[in-house]
């Protein structure tokens, strides 16, 4: 089968996965909790975006940003009013995020019913373009571009702004960060909101490809987990590399080894956790 075609699909899925998991990586890196609500926030963002696009006929990109803002707000509320109670108790925080994911999932079912929603490609990016001699969906190429732009934006944020410096300090050594006067609790809320917003944005951006349906959270959360574990928590470069690795594993796994597709996906995660828990690019903390 067409190796380059599969590769192209892998790269575009990788782009989408980066949008999904960059937020997860930030949250895990800074707050040391795997946010198991992340998949549900992705799905919520997809539903909100789809609602704006299909029923209000909002512009696609505007809807994506709007849904990012709304989901970021929801994320901030979750962090401030639920996770804050359990500050320091990481195990409890993980379990709370698990419970919240059930709630968000069912809320989506209540509001939007179980019927999947189909979202069209944004105008101008429909159809296929010829690359390397075969047609490839234009929108998927756009997704790669968006991922690169967001990656650049996040890098600028982390590397060149004060907020970014504070986040990096918090990731490297939370206790020292507190001692130095960095308002760590506020930082947590901001980072959680940022992560949630990225997930919401990813949900809408991904909706023309994946469509919006109720099991989306259960599909995407494990992928985000694998990306972050492989790439290393708290590392942007790790998320980027991890996303593309997972994209390749997923697409090639489904195409060439369908029976072992999920095995191929999760085995590297298990091996990394067993042998090099900080991932490929993470720093040995804990």
């Amino acid at each position, binding site marked *: 089968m067409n190796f380059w075609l599969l590769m192209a*699909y892998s790269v575009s899925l990788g782009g989408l996965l980066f949008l999904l998991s960059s937020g997860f990586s930030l949250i895990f890196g800074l707050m040391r909790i795997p946010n198991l609500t992340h998949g549900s926030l992705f799905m919520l963002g997809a539903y909100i975006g789809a609602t704006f696009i299909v029923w209000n006929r909002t512009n696609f990109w505007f809807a994506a940003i709007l849904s990012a803002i709304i989901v970021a707000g929801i994320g901030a509320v979750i962090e401030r009013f639920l996770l804050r109670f359990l500050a320091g108790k990481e195990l409890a925080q993980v379990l709370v995020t698990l419970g919240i994911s059930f709630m968000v999932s069912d809320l989506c079912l209540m509001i939007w019913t179980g*019927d*999947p929603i189909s979202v069209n490609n944004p105008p101008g990016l429909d159809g296929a373009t010829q690359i390397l001699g075969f047609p490839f969906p234009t929108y998927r190429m756009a997704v790669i571009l968006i991922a690169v732009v967001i990656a650049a934006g996040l890098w600028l944020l982390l590397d060149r702004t004060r907020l970014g410096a504070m986040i990096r300090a918090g990731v490297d050594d939370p206790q020292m960060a507190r001692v130095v006067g960095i308002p760590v609790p506020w930082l947590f809320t901001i980072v959680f909101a940022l992560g949630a917003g990225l997930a919401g944005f990813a949900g809408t951006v991904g909706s023309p*490809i994946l469509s919006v349906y109720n099991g989306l959270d259960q599909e995407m959360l494990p992928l985000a987990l694998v990306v972050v574990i492989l790439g290393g928590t708290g590392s942007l470069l790790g998320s980027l590399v991890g996303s593309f690795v997972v994209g390749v594993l997923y697409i090639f796994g489904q195409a060439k080894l369908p029976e072992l597709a999920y095995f191929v996906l999760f085995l590297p995660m298990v091996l990394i956790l067993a042998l090099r828990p900080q991932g490929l690019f993470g720093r040995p903390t804990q």
Partner: protein
Amino acid sequence: MAMHRRKVLKGIAASGASLAVLKAPYVHAQGAPFKLGLLTVKTGPLAQGGIQMEQGVQIYLKEKNNTFAGRKVEFFSADTGGNPAGAKTKVQELVERDKVDVILGPLAAFELLAISDYFAQAKTPLMSLAAAEDLTQRKPNPYFLRASATSAQAMHPMADFAAKELKLKKMITISEDFAFGHEQMGGFQQTFEDNGGRIVKKLWPPLVTPDYAPYIAQIGDCDGVCQGFAGSNPLRFMKAYAGAGLKFPVVGGETAGDDALLRSFGDEAVGLYSCCPYTLDLNTDSNKRFIAAMVKEFNVEPGFYAAGLYVNCMVVEEGLKKTGGKSDDKEAFMKALKSVTLSDTPRGPIKFDSFGNVIGDFYVRHCEKAGGKLVNKTVKTYKNVSQFWTYDEKKFLSQPVYSRDFPPLKS
């Protein structure tokens, strides 16, 4: 739209309830109410069909004022979630807790296969759209009746059409990796290859596939594609197919080109052929009545799922009339149901064979754009198609059930 739908459903429930109350003094109910159970799917990719199934039942109940053969009807609807485990749980609830007299549904073949032993043991008649072949073939269930089609019943004529009219020779099949998909593609392959064609590749994405890309990337080197996607998956597949720039003609089964999906399809569906036991443009009185009611109540044009359940309700009521309204003697009720023949239904005339499967007409439709919207235009009608097509019954039953590997790929 979701809000609108829910309000409408609530409206129907309220009007149904109030109508029932109003009519109460006038209804000479035969003692206990007749309990009708429905196993449907309201979550997941098959939800598109499941919601329609319930709508079909509700339209019929409304038309008949919640009364079958003089008995008041109590309706229990259960959401199986579109998987066998859920179907098992819900059928137990319907039989043991709600004590229903007859069950309609479930939707999917793999759900039906999981509960077959159970409802046979419980001696509860069940009428389903689910196409699991063996329930009316090699492992016949005496309490099962099917008024729609077996998985392959719609695919045999489709293959005949594809080989003889479309003159296709090399095809790739793609369908979900569960019983319905396997059986559809198997049936298609058998008849297609009997008519001189050849299947060169079979692809099986899982029922829940976020991204069809890895499978679409494998389509090539053929002159046509046969797909059997169900629920809302046909929408996603056709979009991804068109998005990849593929232009081979696509043929499909009863769910692939479902009339109810047309409003959600874009231009990628133009040119799709599908073979279905139901079609919107069928000119029978009951169909016209049915379509008008669906449009009025739910503001949607019906498709295969809603029509199938409407017809099932017609059969249940007819069976109940035959037993004089009595449903306590389950064996007698089942016998009455099996002997039902109807000449005017939304899907045309129907009768049942000795296994409890329908013999009826099947329609090959071509998707076209008319007046700015998509319609399925019937291009050929195959009359009196049975589940065995033109094959000898004994010979057909002696071969294994259609599955992922049967018929095998000719290398």
